[in-house]
């Protein structure tokens, strides 16, 4: 029995069929408007959806929001502004029938676990972004949910704060036996936190797999960009190659390279020790070159160039049957 089985349709927003096992952390990724938040809200019951949803074998169809054992952390936290951090976290235990003292003890315990126990008496407006997100996740977990829904928990946080919170969250998720759905825009979240990645595109689930698999063989442009890979379609197969494998030449290369395309440099940006070019032609492709090459080839936006890549640097793979979406 899977811990989570879903086959949900939110009209005009998202259609997804998937299963997840106990304790699994699922990263839900996809471009803006792909239906990630709609999927989470449909699971929580906040938007009407048709279809089936089973958690631990029990159907949640037609169940009102408050009767679904979910914990949800929202993108902008939405901590109750009139309640202290402690009262926010104690909210779910209280509604579940715990006494005031018991609920407060539970809440304090959760705040302590997230390292914000000393902020218990603060109102949300006196919390930093990272602190508020910790309280928000603690609040979601304090109700002992069977499903944890995290909607972009690191959005809007400073890079350093997000990195710390990511490590903490990984620790908590490891000991959580329910299913976690984590909506994210960052490849690193999928790679470091998730057991499985669900890729949504235009309201449909187009790829499901372990993070490394999805990162190595992306089926959508969005994921390819997230993991900095170039992905092209060739009939019913996908071709992927790294931007560092691309050679940039001022004119059509003489050599034997089968893969070569003319294009116009659209942008240049530093990328580690290299400079990353976006070249637009028949495809949009990324190419990493050295700063010396930028000077030598006089690369600037608008410059016409040829890109080529050796056959050996290209990975070719088939679209998953039934999931192909080009």
């Amino acid at each position, binding site marked *: 029995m899977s811990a989570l089985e879903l086959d949900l349709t939110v009209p005009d927003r998202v259609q997804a069929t998937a299963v997840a096992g106990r304790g699994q952390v699922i990263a839900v990724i996809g471009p803006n408007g792909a239906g990630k938040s709609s999927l989470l809200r449909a699971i929580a019951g906040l938007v009407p959806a048709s279809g089936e949803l089973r958690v631990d074998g029990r159907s949640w169809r037609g169940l009102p929001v408050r009767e679904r054992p979910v914990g949800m952390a929202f993108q902008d936290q939405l901590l109750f502004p009139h309640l202290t951090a402690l009262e926010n976290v104690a909210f779910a235990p209280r509604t579940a029938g715990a006494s005031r003292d018991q609920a407060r003890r539970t809440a304090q315990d959760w705040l302590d676990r997230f390292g914000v126990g000393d902020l218990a008496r603060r109102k949300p407006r006196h919390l930093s972004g990272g602190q508020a997100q910790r309280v928000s996740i603690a*609040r979601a977990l304090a109700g002992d949910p069977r499903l944890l829904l995290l909607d972009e928990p690191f959005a809007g946080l400073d890079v350093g704060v997000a990195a710390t919170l990511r490590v903490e969250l990984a620790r908590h998720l490891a000991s959580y036996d329910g299913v976690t759905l984590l909506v994210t825009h960052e490849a690193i979240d999928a790679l470091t936190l998730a057991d499985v990645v669900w890729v949504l595109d235009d309201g449909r689930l187009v790829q499901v797999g372990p993070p490394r698999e999805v990162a190595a063989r992306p089926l959508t442009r969005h994921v390819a960009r997230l993991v900095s890979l170039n992905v092209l379609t060739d009939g019913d197969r996908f071709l992927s190659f790294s931007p560092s494998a691309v050679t940039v030449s001022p004119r059509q290369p003489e050599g034997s390279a089968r893969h070569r395309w003319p294009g116009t440099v659209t942008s240049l940006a530093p990328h580690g020790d290299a400079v990353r070019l976006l070249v637009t032609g028949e495809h949009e492709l990324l190419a990493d070159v050295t700063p010396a090459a930028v000077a030598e080839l006089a690369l600037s936006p608008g410059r016409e160039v040829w890109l080529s890549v050796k056959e050996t640097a290209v990975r070719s793979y088939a679209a998953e049957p039934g999931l192909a979406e080009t």
Partner: protein
Amino acid sequence: MTSSAQPRLGRPPLVLLVPGALAALLLVVPLVTLVADTPWHRLGSQLSSTAVREALWLTVLASVSTVLLCLLLGTPLAWLLARVAFPGRSLLRAAVTVPLVLPPVVAGVALVTALGRTGAIGRPIDQWFGLTIPYTTTAVVIAHTFVSMPFYVISVEGALRTAGEEYDAVAATLGADRWTTFRRVTLPLALPGVLAGAALAWARSLGEFGATITFAGNFPGRTQTMPTLIYTQLQSDPLVARTVSMVLLVVSVAVLVLLRNRWLSRL
């Protein structure tokens, strides 16, 4: 240049200055003359007369009852309008706001048609329970509530909408039913609007005249409030009318100051 910014853009033109000054005079002068003409040395004796004391008490009673009724009935109505989608909601919202612009005398007449001895609701109440509403203190409270409630409902509904349904959704994911959500989340977040609405309703009730005198009459000790007393006294003893008016002016200004300092600044 110093802090005065006026010379840079030129003097205010007369075409704006003169009407503006006239408007200010119109608003300020009557209040100043009222204060100046109040017979301060006889204030105590006049205010302690039976008629004034009874009217004062009735005004306090009616305005406090009005505020309580607004809180008890108006808050749920505002919540329904702000949170529940039901057929005819926009129509009901429009109907609720009508008393805001309705001439108070018309409000009084409308109340008579509904609750008068021969009214649609008044007749059965009279027949079954032997109760008549018009010309009673109850009628005063009903008239005041009728004209004051829209101010309260509009204010609270606005606050509920600003507070947003998003927090209600959060509370639901945390397992709260709608009543718990209302008590612990919705209402506390809308509190500034509730307080402002209560103050507005109270101030409206304090000055209510037209609907009251039409529906409840002007009987000393039973339905005579401060405004209706002023109206009566103006014909017999203008000095008392001025004194009582002065009291209402002071109370009104106090409400205004309280509103600005305590509540409106928080909205």
